[in-house]
């Protein structure tokens, strides 16, 4: 089966985001950008399914600026076979992304779509669930294990109380959680090889999708700042503080 993996270019997780002075957003000039970490896990899972002989082809998709090509090249270097970039120089919301992905799913007919559970910039945690609704397919979100069995897939999910397993008819939509796998690094030869793998360019209009945002960002501000408090010298002093706070008797 074919696997589709949507990957988003986001601020690198090691960078501390800074809100712009004018309150219009987060300052991304000269900031390191990377593939959303959950999407690396998604690419890795697809590669493992291919290595097991379950997946036949892996298609990576990104919706975003031209620079998202770099993110797709990373996916190709990890082991994806080809890539599709849907170019939009303005930010596309999860609903718009899901609508574009729906069209790509109709064209490509993948057996699984594996997305990240959450993009670490917008923290929306929506796109996979929305794609599942639009395509009328079942969803296995926050996956920590994915087992394909014939025409169904068993997904173990990280939920509030622990773990839960569901069985989904394929084709299905899966979103990754942190414990699904540990993504590999692309080797130098694979990075070189990725340069010649196919990368198609499209636009939202090619898919007939209107990506006009439904949410207007009125302003972006910094959260209330916490300042460092005091340091105590030893356990006795800490115990005294806890007692003063009424936490300990």
């Amino acid at each position: 089966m074919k696997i589709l993996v949507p990957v988003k270019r986001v601020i690198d997780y090691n960078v501390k985001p800074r809100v712009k002075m004018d309150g219009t957003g987060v300052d991304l000039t000269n900031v390191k950008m990377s593939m959303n970490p959950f999407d690396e896990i998604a690419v890795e899972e697809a590669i493992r399914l291919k290595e097991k002989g379950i997946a036949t082809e892996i298609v990576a998709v990104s919706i975003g600026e031209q620079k998202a090509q770099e993110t797709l090249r990373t996916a190709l270097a990890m082991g994806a076979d080809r890539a599709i970039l849907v170019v939009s120089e303005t930010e596309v919301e999860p609903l718009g992304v899901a609508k574009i992905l729906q069209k790509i799913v109709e064209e490509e007919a993948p057996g699984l779509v594996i997305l990240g559970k959450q993009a670490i910039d917008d923290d929306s945690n929506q796109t996979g669930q929305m794609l599942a609704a639009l395509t009328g397919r079942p969803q296995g979100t926050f996956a920590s294990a994915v087992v394909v069995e014939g025409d169904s897939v068993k997904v173990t999910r990280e939920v509030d109380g622990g773990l839960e397993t569901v069985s989904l008819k394929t084709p299905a939509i899966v979103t990754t959680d942190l414990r699904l796998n540990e993504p590999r690094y692309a080797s130098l030869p694979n990075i070189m090889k990725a340069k010649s793998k196919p990368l198609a360019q499209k636009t939202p209009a090619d898919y007939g999708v209107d990506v006009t945002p439904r949410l207007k960002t009125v302003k972006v501000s910094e959260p209330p700042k916490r300042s460092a408090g005091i340091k105590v010298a030893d356990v006795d002093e800490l115990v005294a503080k806890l007692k003063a706070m009424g936490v300990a008797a």
Partner: protein
Amino acid sequence: MTSLVWVEHDTGAIKDATLSAVTAAAALGEVHVLVAGSGVGDVAAAAAQIAGVTKALSADDAAFDHVLPENVAPLIAGLMANYDAFVAPATANGKNIAPRVAALLDVMQISEILSVESADTFTRPTYAGNAIATVQSSDAKKVITVRGTAFEKAAREGGSGTVEAASGAGDAGLSSFVGAEISKSERPELTSAKIIVSGGRALQNSENFHSVIEPLADKLGAAVGASRAAVDAGYVPNDYQVGQTGKIVAPEVYIAIGISGAIQHLAGMKDSKTIIAINKDEDAPIFQVADIGLVGDLFKIVPELTGKL
């Protein structure tokens, strides 16, 4: 304006997260709630008693057990013909079903709101809580998830809502529940605990985590949390993870032990009232947010602290 609030329950108790969602919905207008699953009559009756609730819909059908989104989302989308907003707590279930409802309604969801500014404007955290966005929705209907720590809990008693039966299409035949491994603990639940003791990678292994962190938690009647590193390394189960992509907590007291304070961890606990950090590295970023810090070896400090309490 009338909202439909998703009731998170385990066929018996209504979860606290629901009560925060009711408060958020009440800021928008009238509040109805939806209880789904088999044998949920009593839960629906209890939900109708929540302060501010005027009606509880009871969708008594085994197809809605285990909150399978393939079955539950069409039920909600159908009911939404009569509502202006769907409001769910930002729990694992809420996050699973709400976007599916939103897409069925062709609405862009507003995730994990922190406040209701007006009928169409909300604040929400982005970038691991480092940027708070004020967003205005142009959709006719709103689909919203609510961050529990940002809203007071509505009182469980005081409402006098009616109970009405609701039904949906039932089983979509796309998915089934196989099983669950739910952590059992006598300790308070993380997201509603007053005190949390959290351990990080520094604990080194599961045995240390249990023998060092748990006795302190028990002394304080606290819940136990962990950093991602501690969960990834298998010291504790996944549901202990506090952070951007784990649980969001805001207890009276949060004690971070052997946790460095990465932004992804801070995102989950920096709204705690008092933060206490124990770390051997005096430059650890956790000290930048801690009200009380103690620099030193946790393996010496924590047992001594437990002993002296």
